[in-house]
């Protein structure tokens, strides 16, 4: 088996993405609040693309009812999501820097936990928690940009999921309408589409892509 080192992994990424992009990603730090269907998939994409540091927060443990859409495995049931996801991310990039917070996020601890992250992904389940995180992060952390997910329930068309710039420092991904309480189910495919939108918006921000078309 080929021996993978930090150097060979770096060079493999440079071969695909070019050195300029790889350096920008490697020097980046991104926060993810909530490690469920959205957060676990966002983290996987960002680690694959070579984001150097992730700050991951979720108080919950892996449950059998998570496996239908979240990036966990049967042998991780009962583990903290922070620890379980960290194990998976280190299989993708053994040198990724991870800060893990197995705590419930509140208006009191959000500014401290994510204070060093220029970009934060909101990946909560409940609408009230999403609103709380947005209010806290945008009010308390004047340099942070938030990429949020809202509206990915049900089996409607995946094409309805979009990314839009909703505020000066807020991007919202999703269809904006399908509430899980009303549409009943969250399917792995549609949730992953939304997570893909969020991870891709993070990529575009890190690469400095123009967002005027949003």
């Amino acid at each position, binding site marked *: 088996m080929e021996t993978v080192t930090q150097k060979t992994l770096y060079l493999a990424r440079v071969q695909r993405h070019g050195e300029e992009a790889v350096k920008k990603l490697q020097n980046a730090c991104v926060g993810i609040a*909530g490690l469920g269907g959205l957060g676990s998939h966002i983290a996987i994409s960002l680690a694959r693309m070579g984001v150097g540091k992730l700050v991951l927060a979720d108080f919950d443990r892996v449950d059998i009812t998570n496996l239908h859409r979240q990036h966990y495995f049967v042998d991780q049931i009962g583990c903290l999501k922070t620890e379980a996801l960290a194990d998976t991310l280190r299989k993708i990039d053994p040198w990724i820097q991870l800060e893990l917070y197995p705590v419930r996020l509140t208006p009191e601890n959000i500014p401290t936990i994510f204070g060093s992250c220029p970009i934060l992904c909101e990946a909560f389940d409940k*609408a*009230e928690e999403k609103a709380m995180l*947005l*209010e806290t992060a945008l*009010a308390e952390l004047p340099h942070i940009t938030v990429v949020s997910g809202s509206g990915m329930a049900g089996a409607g068309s995946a094409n309805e999921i979009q990314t839009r710039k909703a*505020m000066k420092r*807020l991007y919202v991904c999703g269809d904006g309408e399908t509430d899980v*309480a009303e549409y009943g189910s969250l399917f792995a495919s549609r949730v992953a589409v939304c997570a893909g939108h969020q991870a891709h918006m993070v990529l575009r921000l890190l690469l400095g892509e123009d967002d005027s078309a949003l």
Partner: protein
Amino acid sequence: MKWNGKQTALEAPVTVLEFLQQQGYNAQRVAVERNGEIIRRADFEKELLRDEDTVEVVGFVGGG
């Protein structure tokens, strides 16, 4: 007032909470920005929206 990109007639100043209720939003599930600044939920009852303001309201739904 410019609300979510559209011109909206506002005859007299209203509190954020009144405006949200008039438009059918659940105040616990929104983020509100006025002239580029976020307004905290604790201030929804006292902060006023005026005709010259630019306001963005993002309503969230559950699931993630």
